[in-house]
């Protein structure tokens, strides 16, 4: 006689799973990774590999020896954190060991200390990144010079990001919008190419991993706000198109602000979240000490996500 399984309804499940979602995010990050390798060469690849492997290793160690739970490294979330962390640092040889510390902070403090995937209030990769930015300010702002594809000369060439240059005085004259769109500018390895990021975001939208609300609200707010400032005084403020193409806005809006765990759940909340991110980014860029503010903006908004979730509820049926 058959032993029957019994449970409450429903008795079927969609083929959606956490693992699938995470690996889809990883796939969406591939274009940006390829562009980074193309522009920054071998260090970009090495930093990425080290970052991903150390994130996975730390997660495995913590789950095995501290939390004593079955390992979840196969679900791909550690890989996402590793890749995003790598994308947020300059592709230099120095980073190879620094990024390991970043991974420890990202996974250990940013994620596992709260109980693992799904329980962390802040985006782990950004926690790691901000920790590194504060602890290793020199290394974290030493950018490799971008000089054509597949560079072979990695000597201590230090370039500048458009944002950094602007903070110092003015944009370098030779940077065009087209450069910024394709990624032919200085910066952290994953954030340079808008086109590669948008390609990945399009994939996520198609697979319904993310919705348009956060990226559009984020980029839209940044564009509008910087546009207003630019109209007020074009000499003191960067033009809005350049603003959204440079720095981490694209990467942040498409991949880090949309992190499911740390962003609001209702559509209205997501719009509010994106708006806050955009606003804070521009405020920090223009009036803060750092030339870039995406990481801080997202982390600040992460911190009020539970409040947004409380306030922004889905529309109920017939109310």
């Amino acid at each position, binding site marked *: 006689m058959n032993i029957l399984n019994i449970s*409450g309804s*429903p008795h079927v*499940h969609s083929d*959606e799973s956490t693992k699938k*979602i995470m690996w889809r995010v990883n796939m969406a990050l591939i274009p940006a990774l390829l562009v980074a390798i193309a522009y920054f060469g071998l260090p970009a690849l090495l930093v990425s590999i080290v970052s991903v492997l150390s994130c996975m290793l730390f997660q495995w160690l913590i789950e095995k020896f501290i939390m004593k739970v079955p390992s979840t490294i196969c679900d791909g979330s550690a890989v996402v954190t590793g890749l995003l962390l790598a994308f947020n640092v300059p592709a230099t040889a120095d980073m190879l060991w620094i990024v390991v510390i970043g991974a420890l902070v990202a996974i250990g403090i940013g994620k596992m200390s709260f109980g693992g995937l799904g329980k962390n209030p802040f985006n782990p990769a950004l926690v790691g990144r901000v920790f590194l930015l504060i602890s290793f300010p020199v290394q974290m702002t030493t950018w490799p010079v971008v000089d054509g594809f597949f560079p072979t000369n990695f000597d201590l060439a230090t370039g500048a990001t458009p944002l950094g240059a602007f903070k110092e005085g003015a944009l370098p004259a030779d940077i065009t919008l087209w450069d910024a769109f394709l990624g032919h500018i200085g910066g952290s390895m994953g954030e340079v190419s808008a086109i590669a990021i948008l390609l990945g975001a399009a994939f996520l939208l198609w697979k319904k991993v993310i919705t348009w609300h956060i990226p559009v609200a984020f980029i839209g707010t940044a564009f509008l706000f910087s546009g207003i400032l630019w109209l007020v005084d074009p000499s003191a403020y960067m033009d809005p198109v350049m603003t959204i193409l440079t720095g981490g806005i694209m990467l942040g809006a498409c991949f880090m602000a949309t992190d*499911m765990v740390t962003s609001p*759940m*209702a559509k209205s909340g997501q719009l509010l979240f994106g708006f806050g991110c955009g606003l804070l980014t521009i405020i920090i860029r223009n009036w803060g000490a750092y030339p870039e503010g995406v990481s801080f903006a997202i982390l600040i908004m992460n911190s009020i996500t539970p409040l947004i979730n409380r306030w922004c509820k889905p529309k109920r*049926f*017939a109310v």
Partner: protein
Amino acid sequence: MKTFKMGGVHPEENKISNDAAIEVMPVGKQMVVLMNQHLGAPATPVVQKGDKVKVGQLIGEAQTFMCANVHSPVSGTVLKVDSCKDAFGISKPAVYINVEGDEWMESIDRTPDIKRECTLEPKEIVAKLKEMGIVGLGGATFPAHIKYNIPEGKKAEYLIINAAECEPYLTSDYRVMIEHAEECCIGISILRKALGVPNAYIGIESNKPQAIAHMTEVARQFEGIIVEPLKVKYPQGAEKQLINAVTGRKVPSGKLPIDVGCVVSNMGTTFAVYEAIQKNKPLIENILTVTGKKLPSQHNYIVRIGTTYNEIINHSIGHLPETTGKVISGGTMMGKAVVNLDAPTVKGNSSVLVMDEAESRRGAESNCIRCGKCMNACPMGLEPYLFSALVKNGRTEEAKAHNILDCIECGCCFFSCPANKPLTDEIRLGKNRVRAMMAAKK
């Protein structure tokens, strides 16, 4: 194409028994008729051991308000009036009948002729529905005479016939539409008369083009029956969602469809209504789908109520496949898993669905990643993830404040959850607790 506005999912349809014509299942040697086949209190047995009964004879009488008559599905001798374990192992009062021959009550018209005219007044129709023990066959088995007795001060404007059959696998309503369209339309006309509404709308999902075409064709001969094709989306057949899809109206929280002038009936019920009113045949048969991906053959049957699951399985496919993991009465989204295959079927059973061990097992649960998929899938605009946390921590008051009682238990949240959390189970538990809390306060 029309559909409801909010949430919903699209599970694999699996309508593999679509083309199996309705067969008649033979009657077994012994029948067990439960007295509790409907929503509400059990009927009171009115036969005793040794009594001779005929097919269609009243054996259980509705003596309380929320109750429905039960009739004998077979002819023979009453063996005993005792209790019997139902499909979920719970003992229910039941009448055991030894089958002898197949002698029907004289009042029942068994000719195949279709009888079109109905001269009864609305009040008489409702009384006859009660007499014949008609209940809603869409799953809830709500006694029909209560539904069609519109309370004072309320007025029905729409009659909506649920032929969406949005549940995966089920095809009994589809077969009824294909094979008994005219009878159904007469049944609908009778219900329309009972309610005094100008128009009846039949909501059919667009994955049944043949049924839409056929019903439209047949409905043309009838006044005020309109076929409404609907986009395929689950839970289209849920009362509130169907009303929203067809009329655009929304039944507010805690209200009934009649509060927005709507009455919803299942397609299978209209056929039962036709037989009851025009042919004097009480509700003694179910139209039932026997289906499953791994079964050698797919069937649709007309089955006497009281036939056991095992009899149905033995007759249709011989025995359950070795790999069977679950037997479900109803569809995969809202059906109930059966544990006792020796249990008799009851009114409203629409399928015997056999699932494989592998497809029936739930996946391992992991942490909620706050993706919000449950919230987007919820057709009532609720927050299942939040209920999960509140129920787990025993915060019943808050669950109530977040309108947990609005949940229609359609299962979209669990279906779409990537972390495999048993959200629907948790919400049901929470609803029970909220109800208990409210009852304790009274």
